[in-house]
């Protein structure tokens, strides 16, 4: 770890040490406002550092790359952390949580995500994954007064622990078969082919199970609705966007570096993708709670992302990256709306708490409608361009079957999203008005809306950026 490596790792160091500093400060100085401001500042500085500072070396100690791709996602996760903190500000102050602890945990999570996105070594992959998972274990259960939060925390913890078990055993098998942990060669498994190959594939299978838990693929997604419902909205926002986005970013990075290496895994991935899309969309159809609906919708989106990964073509990877960025922005918007409406009676979750809110809070409900329509894939919004790109890539690689499943899932998702939008603007027995929301929340909402519309109508900007950074 020479000085140059440290310099290359600068943004993540800023996040980590910033978090520690705020944690220490929080011990003496309980006043939440400055701590939050400090947290947001740290995140922004890290983002600027990632953007400005040209890393001297391409790789950091063989574990993480510092290339354009990694820095792009470092910026994204840093901005996400900043937005998450801005959304959580009012929540922390009202619930009287330890501002220092919350902010530092979020910053550690951001650091973990940035590391994961730039991991080029299984060890780095494993370390980064565990760092932000641990941070989330605590963040989810942070609201001591709410019983459901504890339950959600427990579920996430136990499932996470089992997943870590699978991940570790998987990596071990890969290491046993390929003799190396560096990702491109480990993935290729060509060096020691012969009779041990299936065991290597089993190793990758088990890593896939752990990844499946993390980005809630079909059979491993059952925890998602409960955790999203239990976790407070700001944490749910980070969980839905950051943790999933980072893992997918890592997989994209892996595939981008090593080329089409997963041809043995394709039929397994095909099955998982189809199952996920169906489970997500059908699950959401019967929901009566908005956060659970968002959870299932995130499952569907992960299925579509898997379709993008499956294509293993440069088109597919660019489409998946675009999809991840758009998905992160839209989901954040959705949870930000829920957080901004939360008041002393808690967050509006069940449908009859949302009935007719459109008349009381027209602007924010309009944003929510735009977000939902973007999640559904209405043309004109970023969601459509993302889905269009993935479908185009999938068709190019000949996965017509998956595209048709995707079409069915999209139609079903339009159904339940539109049912929510109708609910919002229902005029008979409307629900009581909610909190007016603070400036910081409105800023985040404005940013998300702008992103959805800009990337929807002028996606060229993001596409060019992605094609430049993808190796």
């Amino acid at each position, binding site marked *: 770890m020479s000085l140059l490596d440290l310099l290359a790792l600068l943004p993540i160091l800023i996040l980590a040490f910033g978090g520690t500093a705020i944690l220490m400060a929080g011990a003496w100085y309980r006043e939440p406002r400055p701590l939050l401001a400090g947290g947001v500042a740290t995140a922004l500085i890290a983002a600027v550092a990632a953007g400005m500072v040209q890393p001297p070396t391409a790789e950091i100690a063989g574990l993480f790359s510092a290339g354009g791709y990694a820095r792009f996602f470092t910026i994204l996760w840093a901005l996400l952390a900043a937005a998450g903190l801005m959304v959580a500000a009012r929540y922390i102050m009202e619930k009287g949580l330890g501002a220092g602890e919350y902010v530092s945990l979020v910053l550690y999570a951001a650091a973990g995500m940035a590391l994961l996105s730039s991991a080029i070594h299984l060890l780095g992959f494993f370390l980064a994954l565990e760092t932000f998972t641990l941070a989330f274990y605590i963040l989810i259960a942070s609201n001591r007064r709410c019983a459901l939060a504890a339950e959600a925390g427990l579920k996430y913890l136990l499932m996470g622990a089992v997943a870590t078990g699978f991940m570790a055993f998987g990596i071990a098998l890969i290491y046993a078969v390929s003799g190396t942990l560096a990702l491109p060669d480990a993935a290729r498994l060509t060096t020691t082919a012969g009779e041990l190959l299936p065991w290597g594939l089993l190793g990758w299978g088990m890593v896939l199970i752990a990844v499946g838990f993390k980005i809630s693929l079909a059979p491993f997604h059952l925890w998602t609705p409960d955790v999203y419902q239990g976790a407070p909205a700001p944490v749910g926002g980070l969980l839905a966007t950051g943790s999933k986005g980072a893992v997918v970013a890592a997989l994209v990075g892996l595939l981008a570096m090593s080329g089409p290496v997963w041809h043995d895994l394709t039929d397994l991935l095909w099955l998982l993708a189809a199952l996920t899309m169906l489970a997500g969309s059908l699950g959401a159809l019967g929901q009566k709670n908005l956060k659970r609906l968002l959870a299932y919708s995130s499952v569907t989106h992960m299925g579509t992302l898997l379709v993008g990964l499956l294509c293993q073509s440069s088109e597919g990877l660019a489409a998946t990256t675009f999809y991840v960025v758009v998905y992160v922005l839209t989901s954040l918007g959705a949870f930000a709306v829920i957080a901004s409406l939360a008041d002393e009676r808690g967050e509006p979750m069940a449908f009859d708490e949302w009935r007719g809110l459109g*008349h009381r809070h*027209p602007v924010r409900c309009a944003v929510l409608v735009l977000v939902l*329509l973007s999640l559904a894939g*209405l*043309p*004109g919004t970023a969601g*459509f*361009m993302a889905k*269009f*790109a993935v*479908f*185009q890539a999938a*068709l*190019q690689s000949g996965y*017509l079957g998956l*595209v*048709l499943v995707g*079409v069915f899932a*999209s*139609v079903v998702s*339009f*159904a339940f999203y*539109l*049912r929510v*939008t*109708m609910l919002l*603007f229902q*005029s008979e027995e409307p629900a009581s008005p909610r909190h007016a929301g603070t400036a910081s929340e409105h800023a985040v909402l404005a940013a998300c809306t702008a992103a959805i519309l800009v990337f929807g109508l*002028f*996606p*060229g900007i993001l*596409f*060019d950026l992605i*094609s430049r950074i993808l190796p």
Partner: protein
Amino acid sequence: MTMLASLPQFPWLSLLVLLPLGGALLCLLHSGRAAECRALALATSLAVFGVALYLFVCHGQGEGRWLLYEDSAWISRYGIRYVLAMDGIALLMVLLTAFMQLAAILLAWKVERQVASFFALLLLLESGLMGIFLAYDLVFFYLFWEVALIPMFFLISIWGGVNRRRAALKFFLYTLVGSFFMLVAMIALYQIHGGQTGVYTFVIGELLQTRLTATQEGWLFAGFLAAFIVKSPLVPFHTWLTDALTEAPAAGSLDLTGLLLKTGIYGLIRVAFPLFPNATANFLPILGVLALVGLFHAAWSAYHQDDIKRLLAYSSISHLGLVVLGLAAWQLTAWEGSILLMVTHGITTGALFILVALIRERTATRSMQELGGLWGQVPCLAFFFLLFSLASLGLPGLANFAGEILVLLGTFQDHPVWAVVALLGVVFAAAYMLRLIQGVIWGPAAKERSLPDLTPREWLMLLPMALLVVWLGLYPEPFLAPLHGTVATLLAGGLP
């Protein structure tokens, strides 16, 4: 096709599409004050109508394939371009949209709930429709195809009738399924074309040259057909329309029947037929038979209805069946008749929906048992109702007859049996329209009511339509002139 470089002239077509959008945003900004929103909406739609009229007058007789053509890059990664192209047919549709929008806004003058968003949605719908009629790039077309659905969905689900939500959801999902198949077919065509010529683009002009095998063409044509058949409700796929129309608010149903139904047929003419000539050729007989079945099924169903709005919905389906039959005949006169019938049907059925709304405002009912004897109570309204019903019935000298006779004359050339059967359908039209007229105007008044006759606003809506109906019936020449060139090229395999 040598890309017609966008002549450096005023971007009229972009103005047509973006002006209503601007109006909608302004309406939302003034959401507080209802009066201002109404004035704003009216001003915008008047401006759009002015532009459309100017284009009709000045740019009506261009010789080449396109009267106006605008083209600029949009998403270069996928070769998606911002292309707006107007030919004779698009010109008529744009004019119809602008005119009907004006009537819709006047009709919606008495809306109380959320006036601003109602008018904003109406203007957004207009912008979507303008886009559908003008866009010449597949993804751009698809963008407007879906964007036009959203305002209609909200209009029905918020301001609609009793079970409006079910109808709105059914309406949206029905057309959505069709359009998703179109999306997949679009992408597949894009890739095949790219594979063959190395040029990856979505502009229809370019995609016309793709050489497709029979199976490929069949499947892609089926994909596009799914979207357009559902939208121009051919019979087995029409149940969404009757629910949506009966539940939609007055202005919404006016736009739905007057314009949205035309987008389906317009899509066939502009996108599906030119792109897949051979698949179209052997699909035409099926299309013709479907149209005929639709014509009769809708006529019979209309005869059985009690709710006058639902009866008019079925009558729309029946008329559009005749329009599609005209297209299926693949003959110059038949096509011009179909397009003329699309315009006149928009006006006559639109006017009838206005009248139904006015009757509902006065008598708070739409069922024929409770209506009747209106001639005595509201003579002017009843006269207009009679005039437009007769026009919709196909009485010679009024609007629909010109279109219908052209369709029948054209269809008879190659498919005499179709024309004769369609002519029989015209008697069925007389049956249910006369039942409607008798149920509403003549006969003893079910309940003695003192009803106010037409107010000046209502006169302003109905009089121009009445004059237009008579004018189109007697001298449709100015509206047929722009069509000759365009229809000829489209029929000749349409390689511009």
